[in-house]
């Protein structure tokens, strides 16, 4: 039953060889300098051997990093966002010409199958000892198992149609760990801290880490220190990240004016933007990732928001100073507000407590100048404002609204 089939099969097998090699970047050969001086026993021998060695740097033989390129020695690691490149060679090992060769390279991931071949055209004929070469590239977009499926079909001189496939399996790993943290400022600004950790095993040059803001925000990057014309990176001269090192990037987001005016509008979850990260490793091997949309829960202001529009940073002891509060009705109904001012140990409010502020409709706000003084030196927290909605008999307390630095004016004058 089978002997004839064997021969057919084996015959077919020996026609064509199909080989694949991943093309990571080549590496620079390093040599190991072992030197001696002329008076030592080997005399100039070691020096001569090193000069004759083609991989050393002529004139600076003790320099370890050479210029000789060597091909990748193993598959290595591949990370999300990097480009998978591979050499595909189909070689006719037989003594006969074969015809109608079709080489296909597909990449099977856990979710899809991609065709990577540069051309899907059939090669009419392949002479003995000649080969079909193809270099394929693919930017890796998924984590996990990938299988490169290479298929070759061809026709022998005898007219047999033959076909075989090979599978090359590899894992795609995650290169970076990204953590974010939001800080809400007193104003409507939001600060984003992004911690980026290199979880590969080689150093990474961070070419670009930028925040692409959503339509509501403008962004300022706070990762350079302005010195003269050019800003210098806060990460020092060399912007590379060692394995397992983490770096903090800071961004300041300001709501665009059209959104900022509707203060009540920024509520709940908002989309801030996404981080765009470009890195490079050995000899410019490039990788690029974007995070998913970063989202932030806007701080809840309750029904009535009290924010400060004006406040001095330093005030004199026991001297009245002015602040301006802004009261915004964040609720869906109209409110009728009464303001009470309670003194604390250090803060003393000037003026009448319990005054009527009148009706405030939804999303409307009113400005409120207030006068107060501090009886204690140092950094003092302004507390003790109470707003009562007379419709619902609900009281809202506002403590630690802001801080002022209280100084004694006489001391400084004397000195």
């Amino acid at each position, binding site marked *: 039953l089978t002997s004839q*089939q064997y021969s057919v099969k084996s015959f077919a097998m020996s026609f064509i060889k199909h080989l*694949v090699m991943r093309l990571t970047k080549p590496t620079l050969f390093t040599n190991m300098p072992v030197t001696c001086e002329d008076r030592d026993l080997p005399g100039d021998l070691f020096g001569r051997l090193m000069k004759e060695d083609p991989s050393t740097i002529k004139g600076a033989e003790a320099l370890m990093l050479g210029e000789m390129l060597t091909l990748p020695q193993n598959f290595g690691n591949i990370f999300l966002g990097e480009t998978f490149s591979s050499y595909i060679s189909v070689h006719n090992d037989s003594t006969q010409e074969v015809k109608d060769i079709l080489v296909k390279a597909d990449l099977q991931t856990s979710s899809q199958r991609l065709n990577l071949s540069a051309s899907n055209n059939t090669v009419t004929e392949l002479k003995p000892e000649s080969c079909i*070469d193809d270099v394929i590239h693919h930017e890796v977009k998924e984590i996990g198992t990938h299988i490169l499926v290479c298929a070759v079909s061809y026709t022998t001189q005898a007219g047999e149609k033959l076909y075989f496939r090979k599978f090359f399996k590899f894992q795609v790993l995650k290169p970076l760990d990204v953590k974010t943290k939001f800080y809400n400022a007193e104003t409507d600004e939001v600060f984003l801290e992004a911690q980026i950790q290199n979880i590969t095993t080689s150093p990474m040059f961070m070419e670009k880490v930028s925040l692409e803001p959503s339509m509501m925000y403008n962004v300022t990057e706070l990762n350079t220190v302005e010195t003269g014309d050019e800003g210098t990176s806060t990460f020092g001269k060399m912007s590379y990240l060692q394995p397992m090192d983490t770096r903090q990037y800071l961004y300041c987001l300001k709501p665009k004016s059209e959104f900022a005016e509707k203060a009540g509008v920024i509520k709940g979850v908002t989309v801030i933007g996404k981080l765009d990260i470009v890195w490079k490793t050995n000899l410019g091997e490039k990788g690029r990732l*974007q995070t998913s949309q970063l989202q932030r829960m*806007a701080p809840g202001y309750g029904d009535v928001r009290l924010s400060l529009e004006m406040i001095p940073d330093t005030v004199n002891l026991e001297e009245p100073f002015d602040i301006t509060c802004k009261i915004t009705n964040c609720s869906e109904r109209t409110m009728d507000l009464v303001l009470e001012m309670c003194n604390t140990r250090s803060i003393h409010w000037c003026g009448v407590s319990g005054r009527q502020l009148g009706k405030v409709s939804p999303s409307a706000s009113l400005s409120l100048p207030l006068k107060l003084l501090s009886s204690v030196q140092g950094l003092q927290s302004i507390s003790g404002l109470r707003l009562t909605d007379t419709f619902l008999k609900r009281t809202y307390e506002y403590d630690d609204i802001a801080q002022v630095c209280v100084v004694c004016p006489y001391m400084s004058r004397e000195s």
Partner: protein
Amino acid sequence: MDNNETPAQRPVTLDITGAVEVKPSLSEAPISPLPSLLPSSDVHFQEESIDLGGESFITPEEDSHSTPSESLMDKLNDQMMESVMISDSPNNSEEDDVVPMDNLLEQFEEREEEPAAAVFKETLVEEEEEVEEKMDDLIGQDTTEIKIEAAMMQTSPVASSPEEPENVKQKLTTDDQDVITVSVSAVTPEDSTPSSGSPKPEAAALEASSKETTSKDESIPVCTIFSQGSQPKAQALVPDGFQPTLIKSPSFSSSTGGSTEITPSQLAPLVCQPSPSLSKFFSDSGHVNPATDFFDSFTTSSFISISNPNAESPKSAAPPERQLSASSGSSLSTSGLTESGILTPSSFIGPTQTEATPRPLQQAPVEPAPATAPPQPFTQLQAVFSGGDDPFATALNMSEADKRYDAWLPSEETRKVLISMATQHYSQVFVERERLAMPGLKFDNLQGDAVKDLMVRLMGEQAAMKRQVLTANSVEQSFLGLKQLISTKNWRAAVDLTGRLLTAHGQGYGKAGQPSSHNTDSLQLWFVRLALLTKLSLFQNAEMELEPFGNLDQPDLYYEYYPTVYPGRRGSMVPFSMRVLHAELPQYLGKPQESLDRLHSMRTVCQTILDNLEQGLAEDGSMINLTQENRQASLQLWKSRLSRVMYAMANCLLMMKDYVLAVETYHSIVQYEPQQKVQLLSGIGRIFLQIGDIKTAEKYFLDVEKASLEKGSGTIDTCVLMNRAFIYLSQNNYSEAHSSFAEVLKIDPKNPVANNNAAVCLLYLGRLKESLRQLEGLVQQDPALYLHESVLFNLTTMYELESSRSTQKKQALLESVACREGDSFNTQCLKLV
């Protein structure tokens, strides 16, 4: 994505997009068993579908290959990508492939024999378990191929593993290449957890390999480096600079350890096993070595009395030879002079007549016992060397050059001992034994020639007969012979010869920890030996033998310790180069911090000596007047030494991947070696390229262009072109990179780097055949330049990619290597095992 869980105030781990979680929506035909194959119309196809059922894949050709070939070691070292040829489909549209599982399983076992294909070197075997799980997930909805593969991964280990233990030896000796078994057998069932399982087979293989070697040549201790594959490949080929692409992620490290990182544990297999062969060495010639007895009794004391032989007769008029033999502890087997003046090995192992009486403890050897000993062979050897140990000669022309080269600043403690040696002429100075350097060989024989071994394995004894290299026996047993071995790149033989010469000096095998005296020549021999071991990447051996030398600061390593032998001579007997070697060694053994420590203290000494010289003092800070000429020469020497130390530091930092400091240090060398500015700046630029910082690299390359313009050569320097090529390469512009390398070749057609790099670029451009032709042509035309491991590695890699006949082509390379290269050739770059 998950919109609901993004609280503002706590860190959130983000999903990285790209990992789109799309459910597989594949249009493949439903998985169905065999019947679906049958309706196929083509006759051949129908036959093939039945083929899947069994041994059908054994072809005559494959049969001959089917012996398990690779040693287990290689299997562990080589991370082969799984390349599995699964189905010869009856249909041309592979998406519709449906193959019965059972058939495939059996088929896979056959497939293992296929001398396959992939140049992929990595399987990620250790992930297999995990993969299986993932694969299980896939099986449900996914293509058949995956299902098949998952199944194969489960079965194949079972199929292959039971044979392994018995086959290890066989595998070591057979010559075939077998790719697939590699990945499969590494995952034996016991290996289910990579961390615990993987070391086992390695150990087994080691055992096997060492068994093999020991059985071959009895008790002669032979370094086991030649049991192929025991040396981690990548490590041998490239010390470290390579790592960026090679390193495994931490989760893989446990079982892929063999590949890249240099850690002591991985180097362990390289260690030569010490064995007490020397006594055999001696007894073979039918004589007892009385020196051993002498030391046995002598060393029971924890103090060694050192007396000044001048005590009774200052400036004794003893003939030089006599004194030398006395000072060297008379541990030598002192055979007569051979008339010819050329010493044969037997003269070393010859009898010792004189020293039969053990010396009493603590007794001041006022009158050295063997004063009447005939001249030793060793002293004769010394005559060949210009260093001149003749005490008279030294005393008479204690040259300025000696002073300059030997200068060193001992530690405070050592300095005190040396001062008391110099002052207390009439009493003994006791030096604790622990404070002396008592070196001895730690292993005996490196012997062997990997090239020849490989030829025997692959081409048979007959072909291997053609390979002739010099051995320790075939040269003059002297420094001349040693130099001959070194210059012909027979470093293994050279190491053996240093061993013999040191044995003759009484610092042979097993002598470590026993007192012996040093002289200029013995330390030069040690230096050469250790340098060669380092060159051969036998770092552990070098470390073992350096260990008795401590930090190279023991008092008996200074000339002042031997006032009679070296009257008036001062300074370090240890050559400066040996100190550099001593400092550099730990970095190759995974202890770069230690290297840095040592290098820093060397740098301090160099700096202090330079300061002394600049302040008008002698090197050691004494108030000796130096002529202007001598001062200049000394300043120059010590500046070059300082720069050598700085180079070592920068190299070490680079190895540690501390790029900031490495760049800084390389930068600082420019002030000492201004003529190397271009090379240094280019090197720094390449470091930035390695990190991936192309912009900064370009800045440095621009500086190089300026510097080379300053030199005013008019034409563009080759190194400027070379740098441009590297920039193009980093921008993935291989065709421009290729033309830049080609431009270098227009100026300097014989430039091996440009030639090799141009060929590498061709491969990345998809021009394999051209690239191969170019490299092959180079190797044939100018083997002296191109039989270099980096070029050969590239060439063999391309052979593997080109066709299944790579083995024959590699063997041809081996033959050309055999004609030219010495025993130190690293055969691993040929990838023949």
